[in-house]
């Protein structure tokens, strides 16, 4: 293992300390329990947006803390969900009296830890909504699995909901918006190489020189299918068509019902893409793939979208939700409406995403 670290045990903490030292104008960190929060928190009267997940996906989530995006992010160990005490402490520090939205990627660990945190926060008198992101079309059914994983759409939901909270949306409106972003976003990823979890020291899976893994998540877990390496255009076509031609997707998620005072099952349906849809096209590096290669992918993606009648109205290209040093990419398409578009364009100032300021 060759990594720019001191020890595997100190990696997450030292990285956070470096972030805080680099961006004192935007963020602060709290250690033990670990979380990153907005330098000007709490913002009174604003819904606080909190996310979190395993480390190793940077800049997501810790790099998205700041004005116009997250109020706090809770990093776990590498690829391991954070714990409820982190999420609860973060909520107490950043909440400004208007409630907290937890944006949660759909992994059993993240879901259960955020549910426990929400239960704890409510006993402290904080209003909380948990919204799941489950956009990975590589996972086909929801009946026999944990359901789709949360991947690229998470970044877009954090930006859009962050802008909405900044504008004074109340908790219910921000939660509804987040759910809407989620059901309109779809993603799929692929890997050229595996990645090395520092504490483990060896690659999570082995891929031969001429092989790739299609339909991976973001934790170095193997994907749905392993195949011979193909040119970028063919890979892009496989990912893009899986997304664009994905039929309506139905699943049941657990959400908190404030009136009933209990967790309830809610059925959600992702509408399929239609010709004429306006979309945001997001091409993401898994960490080890250079930007120039992402543009090779984007070139083909734009061509496919045009052929399918999808109008790309915004784009995002770069490393935003990564898997350590893994080579590979993911594509996310998000169907945009006018409100989402306006919120996407709103100012944001975080270590990982910044415009309009």
């Amino acid at each position, binding site marked *: 293992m060759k990594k720019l670290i001191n020890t595997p045990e100190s990696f997450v903490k030292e990285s956070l300390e470096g972030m805080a030292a680099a961006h004192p104008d935007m963020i602060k960190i709290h250690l033990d*329990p670990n979380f990153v929060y907005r330098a000007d928190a709490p913002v009174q009267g604003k819904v606080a947006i909190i996310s979190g997940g*395993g480390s190793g996906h940077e800049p997501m989530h810790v790099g998205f803390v700041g004005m116009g995006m997250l109020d706090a992010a809770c990093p*776990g*160990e*590498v*690829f*391991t*969900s*954070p*714990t*409820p*005490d982190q999420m609860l402490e973060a909520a107490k520090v950043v909440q400004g009296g208007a409630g907290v939205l937890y944006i949660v990627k759909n*992994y*059993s*660990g993240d879901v*259960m*830890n955020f*549910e*426990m945190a929400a239960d704890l926060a409510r006993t402290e008198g904080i209003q909380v909504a948990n919204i799941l992101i489950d956009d990975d079309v*590589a*996972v*086909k059914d929801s009946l*026999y*699995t*944990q359901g789709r*994983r949360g991947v690229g759409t998470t970044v877009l939901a954090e930006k859009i909901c962050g802008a909405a909270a900044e504008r004074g949306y109340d908790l219910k409106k921000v939660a509804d918006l987040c759910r809407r972003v989620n059901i309109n976003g779809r993603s799929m990823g692929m890997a050229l190489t595996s990645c090395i*979890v520092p*504490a*483990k020291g060896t690659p*999570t*899976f082995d891929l031969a020189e001429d092989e790739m893994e299609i339909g991976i*998540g973001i*934790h*170095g*877990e*193997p994907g*749905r299918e392993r195949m011979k390496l193909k040119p970028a255009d063919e890979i892009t076509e496989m990912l893009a068509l899986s997304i664009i031609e994905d039929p309506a997707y139905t699943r049941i998620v657990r959400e908190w019902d404030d009136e009933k005072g209990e967790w309830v099952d809610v059925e959600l349906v992702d509408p399929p893409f239609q010709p004429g849809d306006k979309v945001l096209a997001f091409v993401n590096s898994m960490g080890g793939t250079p930007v120039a290669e992402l543009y090779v992918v984007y070139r083909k993606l734009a061509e496919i979208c045009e052929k399918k009648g999808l109008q790309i109205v915004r784009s995002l290209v770069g490393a935003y939700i990564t898997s350590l040093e893994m080579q590979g990419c993911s594509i996310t398409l998000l169907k945009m409406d006018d409100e989402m578009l306006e919120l996407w364009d709103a100012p944001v100032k975080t270590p990982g995403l910044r415009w309009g300021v």
Partner: protein
Amino acid sequence: MVTRDQIVAWLKTVAQVLEENKDYLTQLDAAIGDADHGINMDRGFKKVMSQLPGVEDKDIGSILKTTGMALISSVGGAGGPLYGTLFMRAGMAVDGKYELTDEDLAALLQAAVDGVVQRGRAQLGDKTMVDALTPATEAFKQAIGEGADTIEALRRAVDAAEQGMKDTIPMLAKKGRASYLGERSIGHQDPGATSSYLILKALLDVISQPQ
């Protein structure tokens, strides 16, 4: 009868066993998950060990609840809330007790499994820790119903957990990260079922030792 000191010894043994099996559990998780289960459990029980001195003279319920809280705040992943809930519920089932009858132990096991199922909503056959824990609890209750002593009942429970753990190999995962692999999850032993077996086996080992 199981004493408070045996419960304390059990937790220490679990910490030791999980440290010894850290790489093994992580390896199992690498095949169908994300290669962290052993690391997570080892970190969790190290935290338990650091808090145990503060509570080891208290009742068994308090000791197990403290164990649960330590796991919830240190393990993360799916294992954290699940094992955290398991020990919390186990502790709540034997609140205030300094020793456990076989009936207490049965109640403890049942509450622990129920907690895991409530939290994770996995069913038998989903290829999770439930596939080791549920048969073990059933076997224990049946054994004491048939008049077996504590050690014998626990032995049957551990055998059932071991069988349940092995039975996860041909299963198609329906919960947790492994479910994302679809058919490719078949042929691998579930890491969580394995850690559950190890934890139960540690209890048998401690109880079987002459006091």
